[in-house]
């Protein structure tokens, strides 16, 4: 993990559904300071659910029974909502525990470049998972007029222990 030791008044935390808060949250806390410290979390929605559901042969296999059912668009939206809600809930709980103010913004995948709208000054800090570097919107992030801190997330494996 690269680390900027300078303190910033406004910290933006960019993440998507595969991001691990185990790594990102401590990094954000480390850089927040001051009585009016504000954390802006920008959740970049993943369109993969909708795309997967558009395919007629895609099925969802139950984790407990192994039974598979068609993965429909309706189901994809449910999953997407659930992911967002869960992430927002986790962030709220963490913010409450840390006694900080939290702003939670949601961007669609194709709107990811709008992250720049949340940057106000050069002293702002954007923290994002390092895998964002591989995303199409990275070029937009690179042009932002603020410091960017990429955090190596714990390797995510898809298994019941980690969901």
């Amino acid at each position: 993990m690269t680390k900027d030791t300078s303190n910033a008044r406004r910290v933006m935390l960019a993440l998507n559904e595969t991001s691990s808060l185990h790594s990102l949250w401590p990094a954000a806390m480390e850089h927040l300071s001051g009585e009016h410290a504000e954390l802006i979390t920008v959740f970049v929605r993943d369109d993969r659910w909708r795309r997967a559901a558009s395919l007629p042969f895609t099925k969802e296999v139950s984790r407990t029974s192994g039974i598979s059912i068609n993965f429909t668009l309706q189901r994809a939206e449910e999953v997407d909502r659930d992911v967002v809600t869960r992430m927002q809930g986790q962030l709220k709980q963490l913010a409450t525990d840390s006694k900080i103010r939290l702003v939670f913004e949601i961007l669609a995948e194709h709107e990811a470049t709008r992250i720049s709208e949340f940057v106000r000054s050069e002293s702002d800090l954007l923290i994002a998972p390092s895998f964002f570097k591989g995303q199409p919107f990275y070029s937009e992030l690179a042009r932002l007029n603020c410091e960017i801190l990429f955090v190596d997330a714990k390797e995510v494996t898809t298994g019941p222990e980690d969901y």
Partner: protein
Amino acid sequence: MAGTLERTGIQPVPVTELRTVCPPIAIEPESGRKAPAASTYLGQKRAIDAIRFGIGMKHDGYNVFVLGPLGSARHSLVEELAKEPARAKGAPDDWCYINNFSDPERPRALRLPAGKGAEFRDNMRALIEEIQLAIPAAFENDEYGNQLKTLEAETQKEVEGLWRSLHEEAAQEEIALLQTPTGYVLAPLGDGKVIDDKEFDKLPEEKRKKIKRSIKRLSEELKARIETMPKLHKRHRERVRKMDRDVTARAVSVLLEELKQKYQALPAVLDYLDEVQRDIIENGQEFRRTEEPSLPFFSYDSTALFASYEVNLIVSNESDAAAPIIYEPNPSYPNLIGKVEHRAEMGALLTDFRLVRSGALLQANGGYLVLDVHRVLGRPFVWEALKQALLTKEVRIESPAETLGFASTTTLKPEPIPLDLKVLLIGERWLYFLLSMYDKEFGGLFKVAADFDDDVERSNNNVEAYAQLITERVREIELLPLSAAAIARVIEQRARHADDSERLSMHMRSLDDLLLQSDYWARQRGVDQVAIEDVAEAIRQRDSRQDRMQKKIIDAITRNTLLIDTTGECVGQVNGLAVLDLGEYRFGHPVRITATTRVGKGDVVDIEREVKLGGAIHSKGVMILSAALSARYAPDVPLSLHGNVVFEQSYGGVDGDSASVAELCALLSSISGVPIRQNFAVTGSVNQFGRVQAVGGINEKIEGFFDVCKERGLDGSHAVVIPSDNVKHLMLTEEVVESVHKKLFNVYAVRTIDEAIAALTGMTAGERDENGEFPANTLNRLVEDKLIQFAGRRKQFSEGTGDDKGHK
């Protein structure tokens, strides 16, 4: 008057025989301490031998029934006699109830040598405390933590390996494995992104088919892994559990080993400790529970788990003690058999082996149990339960409802405990005979009857022993010492209590009462020794407290409400004597008995019987009168008499045959026309041959007539005629004796009805001469002539030549 009786040859009872005086007896206070048994159990050799025999017999059924009246010191005697055998037997084993780990509803009984029960219970308590510390400590140390982490890491690695391989496999085929909240989705990738339907449709046909095949195959792989996951988790849990058991076992075995060494001579204890060890190992995780309850009333009660290893000591004996001698004053079912208690929890009644309570049977197990039979019989289900325990030789602690099959709720069924004890039942004689007659099992269970005597012979030796007994009682109850004269006065009163000048009552409660009350009056006088006047005062005050009814009757007689003549003469009327028994107090008083006679068929009507006021024995006495008349007079002619006998102004029941002499005398007076002296009273029963027989309550009867005469003024003419066989029972009050001594009152003893009628009429009864005839001018001659006259009249009537012809 005396001269008149002298003509009949009847002599008054000498003054010295009216009350057998006891000479003063000096007893050193210390002498009473030397041999309490010898004096306290005076005259009870038969009962003592029986109790010793019963206690000594080892075989089944040789339990003892101690018969005797209440207050005869049977309890103290029984306990005294059991002490030595109890010491010889030594303390019996201790008994505990312990948890039955395989079936908690059936607690197990554990036998331990005397004194070991409490020790084992304390050892187990200490063990539980140790375990509560040792087990969490074993799990909190680094070694356990490292082992657990290693296990978890191994499992996690295995899980991750499975998923990683699937991810890699999918990635190689450009398939994404996406995770939803409830499952997985396999979707094709294009440039690292999931492609949609439009992008998929743009793919070449072959590519599309390949993707579909890959997804299908990977789906099977996915399902296979999903099925593997629960097995992996189960295996992980088992490995953790095994590790936990190993850790617990190591922690527990160290602690239990010490106990096992200590109790290695007791296999049953070792078996139990093994079970405890197994159970702790199985439930080791419970010792580590620290989480808070989800709701207050769902609070986890950790003591309940530890309690299952507690020991419920229900019978505890000191190792060097004697066998128990238990007297249960309230032998209710739970107090005798035991009970299973319950505790209320959340509105429900709960129980476990710790709430099993022993009763007197178990407390006395290995020793002696003393019970009052009237209390046993008076409490529901107790008699049957006692017999059941003695027959089966075990105590089964269950409620009566269960025993009778009325209970349907689940409760404990504690393991029965073997019973080996001697039961000593104490009861009155009638209960013994009632049980013998109606309970077929009784005889087999109580084979030894120890019959307490009510009194003891008043021999010189026994009087000496009785004086010692009095001294011993005074010492035990911590009363003022008695003077020699006071002791003598008490002994005289004991003879009076026995209703016999030649015997002494062994009723201990009444003796204690007399001593206590004498002590009270001595203290009232401010003296430090009980004198003879204190004993006399105690007796007088006791009588005074209870003589209200007696005074009422005397008052009614002196005011002529109750008609009793004490002067003059009257034909067919005699003063009989009755006794009223008020429980603790009884007294005598005169009753007027009258008879009328006329020609009849030879029957004497008992009017008391006709109106159902007479008891069976009284009726029997009256019937004997007819037989006596037939046998004694005019044997050659039919008895042609109709007589009526009645107790005048008697409105209550009459029983007993002690008035039959009076009734016969009234009949003879009526037949002969010879008047009876009203300044005399008579008591006694009579047989068919005219022999006068002894009756009860003789002292009270004489004193009852004396009191009435005294009220009207004693002038030396008043007398009571009693059976000569009753003279030995005389223990009259000093006042009566003094009056006789001053020739103001007399007591005559008679052996036959001839002597009695002669005493009452002053006329010689007369004996048959060589010709079989009574001499002229004798009472018997007058009676016989009259009866022959009646027979003639009856014959005339039956032949139709009588005055009342036509009125047959």
